[in-house]
């Protein structure tokens, strides 16, 4: 009884040719049914290849599905559920799959052995980049990527359960029934689109009836158990710490189907039962990669599950399980027979035996024994052990994680009866009653280890990477004896199949070459993922705008209406400048914004600066610990500039902090450091000073804040602030702050602060009034020609004023270097104080921030330029410092710069070369004070 619905035919194309299959087919079974023998070309030698397996282990039948921007390469034809309209293409050929120009590599094979690239493309050195690499890149890889955005949708989700059962073959299904009947929370996953595992592919009887009938009944019951969830087409690709399992569910391969195409599940389980089955392995003999050479288990899958008779088959087996395969010729290794060659370049025509006999055959079924799928037992560092009787690696109970049990073929229990028995045992161990064991076959596998037919011709071990037995032996002869080295030298076990059919055979060939046993030779380590996981699934819905959030300032809408150009600063979009008619470029706009602000009044949205509310009886004391200067003495109604250090003595951030009451401070941070400063403050509060009465909360998003700067700033504000509040220079002097109301009763905070050097204020209102406030201020400001300015003008004005910003607080500079050494209080300890006094940071030679002007009027300055004393050669040894910020000052009509210079405070008026080898701009500069505009600070106090 097959699982094919012949009443439901499906049309598809392969390499442009129309074919049809049935509901229940995989792409591979449909191709076999259509008589397609060659489905791709091999990686290195471009040899014709056919379908070899029937599941995830498939090394040959890698295809591209879909076309154009939805094309997906390297999909295993054996795991693609056939659907109406599927288009698939073979890979890795130049010309057609039946006549591939690159098949010349097969004739050149004596030159293309292991390590070929390492040996050949070494000399001359210059050829690598110019010649070899482009050619190799062109020939390398299998499928081709679409190179355009993936239009499919993906999602991510979390699942929680007591028991995760991985694999729904006989042992997994029976365990799920036992646990599900006991009311346990169970998730049963299987990578196939039909549950049942090997039962679907064999014709065993269970309880004196067809195996598929037992599976159907079990699934019917499981679907109705309320605590059991079944996940089809879901591969557990990784096992992670603390009971976390990564699962990839493929919902559909159709394009444009509703919902996500794939879901990446993060499954939390108290205990996992691994019932992942086993994978049959091939045997290496000459030309064993011819199309038509298949795993015996796959031949039975295609017959029993898909109803395809592969006629005229020769069977090569070393065990009893292989004997289940219907074949015209049986070549039993245990009787001393084996195959020495396979004939037929584009498909098997005959095989030659060691007796010299030649047998006609269209297909060769190989059974070299079974490898338990132990991969997932290894992800948490457990290592499998070799079982000589079964000739395979089995999980080691001693190193296995205690929250995982392994049952059935994954454990090396190869009979169906044994699988059921394992299931009942583990169910009892997990505290559940069991159902009577279903009656079924209990055949021993009776395997005789046999890996490799020695000979002069190439015998394939790893089909996907074109690694032959000879390559492994050559690697050993060249000194690569460790299995890990052999893997990397030959590429054995790499790529999409990760050696599911080749690893153990490769190990056995290496063991023979080194005269060691397999356990002495070792095993390579299995790491996630078990099968490939598309990057799109890891991204899930976090792409485009959902990858990175966007934060808009309260004046964003107003700014958009007024021709603002925006710049990304972290998650924020800030107005960079505002263009007006007639302005030729950004410099015109920025110059105008600076000039008009210094002449009358300009407004800038500074909401993005971090705002942290600091409250509590010990708030002042706490700020003394995190700032270099003292805050406990700050009077209510006043602001103070503060500098914060990291514990290593380097400047971390700066800003102003205002005291609104005895127990209430409002701190501002720079935009970029709002998050890190908050984390740092919480560290200080919880980990260093837990007995202080102080609490912190971020209020960045709660307050819209604007800077109003320029000689007319007060006049404009007086039209906004309600008349009950006196903000005259006497009543509200420089560095004053207070809570008041604006626009007829709206709650606001006013701070008299200046970053630009002008008479300036910062006003904040609850964020929801931000848009209304900017519109009101701009409207009231018309009589003063008030403008909005962006971050560029903000930057120009702060450089003109000599204020440090991100370019100066760059993670390498100290308080002394910033010219703020005097701020560090001598009376108290603070974070970073001790280490800031280290010799190297305070020596005369240490860097100090100074200003720079070009010697020749009009010369352009560039930041990043390095200073070299006049007459010295421009080399690292003579480096005197670097330019950190530059701007064209429309106020002074020259370029100006800020930078760090060795012993800078004592080098005023010295002329230096500023050399910039990146932008090829070398100019002579003069050292000046960093305060270019209003050095005495008179403007901000009027």
């Amino acid at each position, binding site marked *: 009884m097959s699982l094919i619905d012949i009443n439901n035919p499906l049309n598809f194309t392969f390499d442009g040719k129309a074919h049809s299959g049935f509901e229940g087919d995989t792409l591979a079974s449909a191709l076999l049914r259509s008589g397609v023998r060659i489905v791709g070309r091999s990686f290195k030698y471009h040899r014709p290849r056919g379908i070899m397996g029937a599941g995830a282990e498939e090394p040959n039948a890698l295809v591209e599905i879909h076309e154009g921007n939805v094309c997906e390469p390297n999909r295993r034809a054996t795991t693609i559920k056939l659907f109406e309209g599927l288009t698939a293409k073979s890979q890795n050929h130049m010309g057609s799959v039946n006549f591939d120009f690159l098949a010349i590599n097969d004739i050149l094979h004596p030159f293309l052995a292991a390590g070929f690239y390492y040996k050949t493309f070494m000399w001359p050195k210059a050829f690598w980049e110019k010649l070899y690499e482009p050619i190799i890149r062109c020939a390398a890889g299998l499928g081709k990527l679409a190179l355009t955005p993936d239009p499919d949708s993906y999602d991510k989700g979390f699942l929680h359960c007591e028991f995760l059962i991985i694999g729904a073959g006989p042992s997994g299904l029976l365990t799920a029934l036992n646990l599900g009947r006991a009311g346990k929370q169970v998730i049963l996953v299987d990578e196939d689109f039909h549950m049942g595992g090997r039962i679907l592919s064999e014709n065993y009887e269970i309880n004196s009836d067809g195996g598929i009938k037992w599976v159907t009944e079990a699934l019917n019951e499981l679907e109705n158990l309320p605590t059991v969830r079944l996940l089809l087409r879901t591969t557990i690709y990784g096992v992670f710490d603390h009971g976390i399992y990564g699962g990839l569910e493929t919902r559909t391969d159709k394009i444009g189907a509703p919902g996500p195409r794939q879901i990446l599940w993060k499954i939390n389980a108290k205990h996992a039962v691994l019932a992942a089955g086993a994978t049959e392995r091939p045997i290496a003999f000459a030309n064993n990669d011819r199309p038509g050479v298949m795993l015996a288990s796959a031949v039975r899958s295609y017959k029993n599950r898909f109803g395809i008779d592969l006629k005229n088959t020769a069977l090569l087996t070393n065990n009893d399980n292989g004997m289940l395969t219907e074949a015209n010729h049986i070549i039993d290794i245990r009787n001393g027979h084996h195959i020495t060659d396979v004939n037929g370049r584009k498909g098997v025509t005959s095989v030659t035996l060691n007796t010299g006999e030649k047998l006609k055959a269209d297909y060769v079924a190989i059974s070299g024994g079974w490898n338990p799928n132990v991969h997932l037992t290894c992800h948490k560092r457990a290592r499998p052990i070799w079982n000589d009787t079964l000739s395979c690696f089995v999980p080691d109970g001693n190193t296995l994680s205690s929250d995982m049990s392994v049952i059935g073929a994954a454990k090396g229990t190869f009979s169906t009866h044994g699988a059921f028995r394992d299931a009942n045992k583990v169910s009892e161990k997990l505290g559940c009653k069991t159902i009577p064991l279903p009656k079924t076959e209990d055949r021993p596998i009776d395997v005789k280890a046999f890996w490799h037919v020695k000979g002069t011709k190439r015998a394939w071990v790893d089909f996907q990477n074109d690694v032959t037995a000879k390559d492994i032996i050559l690697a050993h002869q060249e000194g690569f004896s460790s299995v890990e080295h052999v893997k990397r030298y030959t590429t054995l076990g790499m790529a999409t199949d990760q050696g599911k059919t080749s690893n153990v055979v490769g190990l056995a060939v290496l063991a023979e070459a080194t005269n060691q046993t397999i356990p002495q030779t070792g095993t390579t380590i299995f790491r996630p993922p078990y099968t490939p996981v598309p990057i799109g699934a890891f991204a899930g819905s976090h792409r485009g705008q959902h990858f990175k959030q966007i934060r808009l300032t309260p004046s964003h809408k107003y700014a958009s209406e007024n021709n603002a150009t925006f710049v990304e600063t972290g998650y924020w979009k800030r107005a960079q400048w505002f263009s007006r008619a007639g302005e030729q470029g950004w410099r015109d706009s920025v110059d105008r914004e600076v000039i008009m602000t210094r002449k009358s009044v300009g407004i800038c949205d500074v909401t993005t600066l971090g705002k942290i509310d600091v409250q509590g009886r010990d708030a002042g004391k706490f700020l003394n610990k995190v700032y270099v200067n003292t805050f406990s003495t700050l009077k209510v109604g006043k602001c103070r500039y503060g500098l914060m250090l990291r514990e290593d003595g380097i400047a971390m951030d700066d800003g102003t902090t205002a005291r609104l009451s005895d127990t209430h401070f409002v701190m501002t941070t720079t935009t970029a450091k709002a998050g890190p400063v908050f*984390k740092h403050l*919480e560290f200080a509060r*919880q*980990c*260093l000073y837990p007995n202080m009465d102080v609490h912190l909360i971020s209020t960045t998003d709660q307050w819209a804040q604007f800077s109003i700067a320029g000689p007319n700033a007060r006049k404009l504000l007086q039209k906004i602030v309600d008349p009950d509040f006196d903000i005259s220079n006497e009543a509200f002097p420089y560095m004053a702050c207070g809570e008041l109301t604006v626009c007829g009763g709206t709650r606001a905070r006013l701070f008299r602060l200046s970053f630009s050097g002008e008479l300036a204020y910062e006003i904040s209102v609850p964020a929801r009034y931000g848009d209304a406030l900017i519109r009101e201020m701009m409207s009231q400001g018309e009589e003063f020609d008030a403008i909005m300015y962006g971050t560029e003008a903000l930057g120009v004005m702060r450089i003109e004023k000599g204020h440090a910003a991100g370019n100066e607080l760059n993670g390498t500079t100290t308080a002394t270097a910033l010219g703020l050494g005097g701020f560090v209080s001598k009376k108290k300890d603070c974070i970073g104080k001790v280490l800031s006094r280290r010799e190297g940071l305070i020596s005369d030679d240490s860097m100090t921030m100074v200003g720079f002007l070009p010697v020749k009027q009009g010369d352009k300055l560039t930041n990043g330029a390095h200073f070299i004393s006049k007459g010295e050669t421009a080399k690292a040894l003579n480096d005197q410092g670097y330019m950190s910020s530059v701007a064209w000052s429309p106020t002074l009509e020259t370029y100006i710069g800020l930078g760090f210079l060795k012993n800078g405070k004592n080098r005023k008026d010295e002329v230096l070369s500023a050399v910039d080898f990146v932008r090829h701009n070398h100019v002579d500069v003069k050292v000046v004070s960093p305060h270019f505009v209003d050095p005495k600070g008179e403007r901000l106090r009027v």
Partner: protein
Amino acid sequence: MIINHPLLGPRDSSEFSYLGDAALLNRPSAKSETATDDFYRYQYLRDNPPGEHRELWYHEHGDRSWLVITRNMTTHAITKVELARDVKRAMIEASKS
């Protein structure tokens, strides 16, 4: 990994950010004569034991508490999760007596 938060119960580790050795709780005194050397050790020298290790994690996408987590560096088994402020308070108490 799953971190069993003392107040919030088991949480996915993706909610947390990692800082490192919990020895950072032990900030030296700035008044000591050996302060420079003490701070150098505090800031730069760390043990990297192959077994149990006490380390600081921050519940950044959660309640913003700092935690002291005792984790085995080879098996990743977490044996203890404490609020850092409780640990620090106990250290202050112990230094008084």
